């Protein structure tokens, strides 16, 4: 496995753990009792961790977006599906960060929609990524002869 891929998988794992850690499950299900895992039940820690991971991930996604833009015409169907899900995750994530700033205020209804959409899109992306890998169609761009 390439170093780059490994780092990306680690980053995604960190985002998944810190994200799901926002739900009160790691303590209930003994994860936080495992040696060295107490931090998974520290909401403030996992919350800050999700922010730091998000900053790294967003930089990578920005980079990927710039690289994909010139070949937009050759993006595969499953590629577009995943791009839409990524965009949803990013948009809802940014809204949530915005909402948490001290002077910002989104209404409660919008907050609820943002939260559920973020979680839903993450699950959908996870399942899509797994599915395309299983059927061997994980390429974002159709391979063309010139490149």
């Amino acid at each position, binding site marked *: 496995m390439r170093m780059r891929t490994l780092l990306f998988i680690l980053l995604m794992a960190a985002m998944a753990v810190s994200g799901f850690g926002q739900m009160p499950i790691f303590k209930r299900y*003994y994860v936080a009792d495992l040696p060295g895992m107490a931090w998974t039940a520290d*909401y403030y820690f996992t919350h800050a961790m999700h922010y730091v991971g998000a900053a790294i991930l967003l930089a990578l996604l920005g980079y990927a977006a710039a*690289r994909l833009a010139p070949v937009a015409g050759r993006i595969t169907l499953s590629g577009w599906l995943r791009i839409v899900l990524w965009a949803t995750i*990013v948009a809802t*994530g940014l809204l949530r960060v915005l909402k948490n700033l001290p*002077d910002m*205020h989104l209404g409660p209804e919008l907050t609820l929609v943002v939260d559920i959409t973020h979680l839903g899109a993450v699950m959908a992306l996870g399942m899509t990524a797994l599915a395309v890998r299983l059927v061997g169609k994980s390429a974002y761009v159709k391979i063309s002869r010139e490149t």
Partner: protein
Amino acid sequence: MPKNTSTISRRSFLRGAAIVGAGALAAAPAVSRAGGQSESGEELATLLDLSKCIGCGACVMACREANAERYPEPTKPFPEMFPARVKAEDWSDKRGVDDRLTPYNWLFVDHITVNHGGEEHEIHMPRRCMHCTNPPCANLCPWGAAAKQDNGAVTIAPDICLGGSKCKDVCPWDIPQRQTGVGLYLDLLPRFAGNGVMYKCDRCQPRMAEGKLPACIEACPMDVQEIGPRSEIIAKAEALVRETGGYIYGIEENGGTNTVYVSPVPFEALEAARDKGKDAKGHGKGSQAQQQNQAGRPHLQPVGSPFENENMFAAAVFTAPLAGLAAGALKLFRKARANHEEES
């Protein structure tokens, strides 16, 4: 720790506005008739002048009466929960408890005897949710069940809350209280996720929507509390402190709250006496007994701003995608130029 500049600028702005506008604002009605919103659209805050409180408990009674129909009516027996370490929290047979916060008691009066300046003071302190201006309970609620309303009140929607108690864990005062056997979790996976609904003071949202005052404010014979736009309340609190030489709790705590206490005795002294008082009542020593005994009775310690790290990282979160885009574009540009040079 890095300072949270936006909070500071907002706060100093409020303070400035408060001082300039104190006179003018005093004339305006504190609460407009519609939806409990201040006329300026500003968040509402409450001021509690503890020197006036006689500890009669009329506010507690009024709260219980006004909100009784919103109290939980759990279905029993509770669904068995997995894993077994997850315990039910049941207050439905202890509805009468009124000396601490419970799902059936959103306000209680803490009676504290304290020596200060060579005098013994009997301080009565009504305690309930502080309605933080940047509330961790709402910011960290994974479902958006806990939320801050436009009028500054922090509420928990009983039909959305799953009772995971995260709001209580992240609240520096452990305010929200859980009742098992009610709410949405019963319709989902009652054995495996959720454990009821969290309850706390929501500053009487139903009453305020009808243009009424919160029940506890209306019922108080001593006019201990008042409610108004935050800047006005802060100005009043500061004026009261100047006048009486009192002390303030709530303006800065937890990054700012919409509940401001003014006391004739320093809050550190009240906290120390509160702690000792509980111990002296013979509830047993030792940290567990002590903790048990303090449960549902919010402390009075200083509380720093909870989101300083996040506020700092937020800037990185917003600039990161742009930086990534720029780096990607630069790479493309370099590649294009290299191709061009190769061709020519």
